[in-house]
């Protein structure tokens, strides 16, 4: 007899994704799929996916989705969650979407303590549009719009969203994780599970920042990109719990 140790989660639709080989979007999608399956929330959850590489998340994750304009997912999610507080709601946003054009929306969602969960994919670059500099692009990191490397005097320094948003009282739980290796991946899954669990308890805004790779636009192999997350990105974006009001509450 044999036991299944791991098989494809029923929280994923049985389709191929368009993501590049090794892209961490795929990993985060499956963690969300596994968490929603384990918490038995697939039938009621509504995800919001704005413009970015993950705009097609609604084709991949096996729950209802609403596609949002670039940067506006937190507003769309507010519209859904406020009118249907019983439904689990989450936004799945990239760094261009959340930290650039949608900065006001995410700040005010956190400020209002909206009771949905945001999964923030920080891969320090604009993926879908071919590798431009993002608000989270590291100093010195090259991109198609910072071709000799990000320069603090010209582009300013990258923003740490988990910390910034955690200064807002409406933020109940914020953690920064990555999925570059198995221990980190396990932690990331626990963090995502905790965020949804808190949401179902009606506890305020929950926010998971996932340091992720973009092998294609970083010009690295998927494995090298994962190493870069651990060696370099996590120096500027420290991993771990940034805020947990349950601890302090």
């Amino acid at each position, binding site marked *: 007899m044999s036991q299944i*140790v791991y098989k494809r989660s029923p929280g994923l639709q049985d389709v191929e994704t368009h993501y590049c*080989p090794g892209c961490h979007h795929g990993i985060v999608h499956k963690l969300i799929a596994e968490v929603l399956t384990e918490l038995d929330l697939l039938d009621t959850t509504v995800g919001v996916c704005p413009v970015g590489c993950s705009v097609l998340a609604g084709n991949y994750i096996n729950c209802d989705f609403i596609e949002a304009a670039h940067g506006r997912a937190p507003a769309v999610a507010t519209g859904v969650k406020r009118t249907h507080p019983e439904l689990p709601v989450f936004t799945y946003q990239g760094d261009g979407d959340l930290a650039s054009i949608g900065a006001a929306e995410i700040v005010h969602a956190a400020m209002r303590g909206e009771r949905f969960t945001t999964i923030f994919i920080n891969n320090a670059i604009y993926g879908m549009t071919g590798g431009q500099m993002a608000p989270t692009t590291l100093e010195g990191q090259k991109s198609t719009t910072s071709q000799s490397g990000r320069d603090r005097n010209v582009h300013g320094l990258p923003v740490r969203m988990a910390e910034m948003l955690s200064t807002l009282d409406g933020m109940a739980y914020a953690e920064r994780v990555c999925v570059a*290796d198995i221990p980190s991946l396990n932690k990331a899954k626990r963090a995502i599970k905790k965020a949804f669990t808190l949401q179902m308890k009606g506890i305020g805004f929950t926010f998971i920042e996932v340091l992720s790779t973009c092998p294609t636009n970083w010009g690295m192999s998927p494995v090298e990109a994962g190493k870069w997350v651990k060696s370099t990105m996590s120096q500027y974006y420290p991993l771990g719990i940034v805020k947990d009001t349950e601890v302090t509450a």
Partner: protein
Amino acid sequence: MRGKVTFNLDRCKGCGLCVSVCPKEILWLNEKVTNIKGYHPSGILDQSKCIACGNCAKICPDSVITVERLDEEK
């Protein structure tokens, strides 16, 4: 304890993450095979060394790997 690893070969994008997390280093991108997408899909070199830890399947961005733990027949 022995494991059995199966791949949905045609959905593998040859990213190599599974290879990088296998504690027994028994996975490789099989250069003798090119799948429908034009990649060398992941493959297992020595099934007998597999300890069914599931790491490869956990990290696969496309969930193409299934891992089973085979109970030792006495």
